[in-house]
């Protein structure tokens, strides 16, 4: 499959089940809401080293938030529910509770409950106040700035982690420009996050290493400087490869996000230095979710245009 001169390789992304939740963080200004969101989702690129994967999902306008103030929604994913129950209150306590003017609310109502103020309320040292309306409880924790308002808990979903695709381009600048365009398009698809810096990974990894005890190491098959010395997946004209990793609340969400990203890259096309789109997998034996690039792109309007 070739779209606008870009070869969509016959490959697939292999993804894994993850457990995730969504928080709505509000503040007096959009800037402080975004600061809280970014701080809370900092150091959360890969579950291997960070314990979770998290990022800002979208900016939420004031009229959509529970308290009518500007906000952001964030998604946090972990490998299992026990881990999620640990990392969420930890990040909430260190990054939202401490951030000026913020409040935090449940972003998902269904699924197993993940504690929020249920844990953090003890910071109030007995002065905390709860209100339960219908079956929903929130807490007011007195702090030096005023009060920290936070829902008791939030719901969770069984999502998908590790969706991905690779952008193979002629140069580093062209690969990055294509990746930036993909991130911009993918950020519009709700229910997904791109947990790596700016949404882009420049150091895609493979499982295992020649060094004992190292779980992951550089994906040498896609390193341009090793072309000709290893079993390379590249062609001679590829000068740089960028990867985009996607975590989403469902298979369909990740598939839609993947398509949006590849479409954005294909619009840049060969004229912009993009050579091919590939994906990272482990042979299909490890992860139950397979995102086949050509199947995902089969329904794209770009394919019809190309025909």
């Amino acid at each position, binding site marked *: 499959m070739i779209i606008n001169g870009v070869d969509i390789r016959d490959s697939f992304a292999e993804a894994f089940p993850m457990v995730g939740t969504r928080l709505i963080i509000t503040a007096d200004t959009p800037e402080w809401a975004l600061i809280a969101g970014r701080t809370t989702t900092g150091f959360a690129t890969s579950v291997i080293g960070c314990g979770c994967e998290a990022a800002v999902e979208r900016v939420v306008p004031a009229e959509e938030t*529970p*308290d*009518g*103030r500007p906000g952001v929604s964030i998604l946090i994913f972990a490998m299992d529910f026990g881990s999620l129950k640990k990392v969420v209150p930890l990040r909430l306590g260190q990054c939202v509770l401490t951030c000026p003017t913020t*409040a935090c609310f449940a972003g998902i109502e269904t699924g197993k409950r993940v504690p929020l103020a249920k844990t953090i309320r003890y910071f109030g040292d007995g*002065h905390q*106040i*709860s*209100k*339960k*309306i219908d079956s*929903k409880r*929130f807490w*007011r924790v007195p702090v030096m700035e*005023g*009060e920290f*308002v936070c829902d008791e808990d939030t719901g969770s979903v069984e999502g998908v982690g590790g969706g991905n695709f690779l952008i193979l381009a002629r140069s580093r600048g062209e690969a990055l420009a294509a990746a930036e365009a993909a991130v911009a398009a993918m950020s519009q698809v709700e229910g997904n996050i791109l947990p790596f810096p700016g949404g882009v990974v420049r150091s895609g990894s493979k499982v295992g290493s020649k060094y004992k005890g190292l779980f992951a190491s550089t994906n040498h098959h896609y390193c341009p400087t090793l072309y000709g010395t290893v079993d390379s997946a590249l062609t001679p004209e590829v000068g740089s490869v960028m990867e985009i990793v996607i975590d989403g609340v469902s298979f369909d969400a990740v598939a839609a996000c993947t398509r949006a990203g590849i479409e954005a890259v294909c619009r840049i096309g060969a004229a912009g230095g993009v050579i091919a789109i590939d994906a990272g997998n482990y042979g299909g034996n490890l992860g139950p979710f397979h995102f086949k690039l050509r199947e995902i792109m089969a329904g794209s309007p770009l394919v019809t245009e190309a025909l």
Partner: protein
Amino acid sequence: MAGLHLKPRAPLAARADLSGVTPAALATLSLREAEQLAVPYGGGRVALAELFFVEGGPDGVLLIEIGDERLDHVGAGLASGEIIVDGVVGAWAGLGMSGGVLRISGAAGAYLGAEMSGGRIELNGAAGDHAGAASSGSRRGMSGGVLAIHGSAGALLGERQRGGLIVVAGDAGEGLATDMIAGTVAVGGSIGPRLGRGMKRGTVFTHAVPELPAGFADTGSHDLVALRLMSRRVPELGAFIGAATHARRLVGDTLMGGQGEVLVV
């Protein structure tokens, strides 16, 4: 049988008790069985048909026409369905109800919604004393649900209230929220003396600073995010709080170690 329609044959000469006469209970009876349902009346028990003309009605609804101030325990124990009273009711209406809706177009006697744990009561007229309170000898009053009083309420509204929401459009009598344990009360009109004596937790919303016992401390006026949240999340409070973002917060009853609050918005 579907729903039921009750119309009094004559004004009651003694107090009648409609405990357990709920849409769910009536759903298992035929119209004939419903007519023969024995209800306490004065010192004895009589068939429902001796007090009311009994007809079928919409599914899940018990409609009582005219009402009577001697008609007690209307909706007591209600767990689902709807009871509509086109008139007044006596004492203990909605006692211990856990779900469903009780609508009363007239006034209600004492202990309206006492110890209710869920559901909703809509009262168009005035409520007697002890609305949403604990019944005689009980330690805890209303613990959940919504009690909306569009008229005024008598003394000891929300006494020993444990949870839930009471909204009064009119005035509230003396002893409001006495020994309140938790929950929320909003009063749109004036409030009688001795509000919140022995209050442990809970919130009372008012529009003016009420007369308070010595155990209340004025913490000043504050920008409370919780106001914005409650205004949006709780429709009944949305109308009361409006666009207010600040409230004067008075905390008590500190003489009893309490941390209840009166929020003046």
